[in-house]
């Protein structure tokens, strides 16, 4: 069966520090992968999506970047975090039966 792993679950980082959130998928190949953010009081916002290794599409300009070094690995990064980067980050993949989301990472930038 297909599963999606996302870590860490919670993270507190100082302003200006780097960020790396990792997402991996098991049980499928060449998945479409997505990074979303839910800021406090707002809906989920699509940040990046990827249809294959090295292929990244960005939906909004921001302080974040994404990479897909392997077929089933999707990484969300930042060189220098801002206070406004705080939020709940979700990784997702699309399979033939619909979309599956990871358990999320709650990032607090202090």
């Amino acid at each position, binding site marked *: 069966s297909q599963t999606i792993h996302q870590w860490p679950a919670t993270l507190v980082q100082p302003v200006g520090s780097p960020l790396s959130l990792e997402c991996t998928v098991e049980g499928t190949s060449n998945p479409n992968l997505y990074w*979303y953010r839910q800021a406090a009081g707002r*809906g989920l916002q*699509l940040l990046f999506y990827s249809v294959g290794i090295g292929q990244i599409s960005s939906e909004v300009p921001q302080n974040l970047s994404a990479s897909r070094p392997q077929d089933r690995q999707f990484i969300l990064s930042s060189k220098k975090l801002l206070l406004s980067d705080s939020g709940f980050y979700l990784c997702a993949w699309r399979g033939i039966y*619909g*979309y599956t989301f990871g*358990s*999320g990472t709650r990032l607090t930038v202090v």
Partner: protein
Amino acid sequence: AQSVTQLDSHVSVSEGTPVLLRCNYSSSYSPSLFWYVQHPNKGLQLLLKYTSAATLVKGINGFEAEFKKSETSFHLTKPSAHMSDAAEYFCVLHNFNKFYFGSGTKLNVKP
């Protein structure tokens, strides 16, 4: 333009009474529509989806939704609320490899 509007940010019902969570959408194309639920400290879970087949869609845990093109709505309903239904619910539109999320509705179920 594509967008989703969830008309209520909070809904409170008593256990055993019906649930109605409202969602309106705007889409230039025939949309796929989803309802997801997020329980505290959990990932998003798919409740149901509409993909241009039957307009009345049945999902998990007794939830269903009706696609009404004339009203551009996709409201989520359940005949009888259970305490375990307390969570946040998201209406989602999907077109051409992109998601459009509503802002979410928090459902509170009172004993």
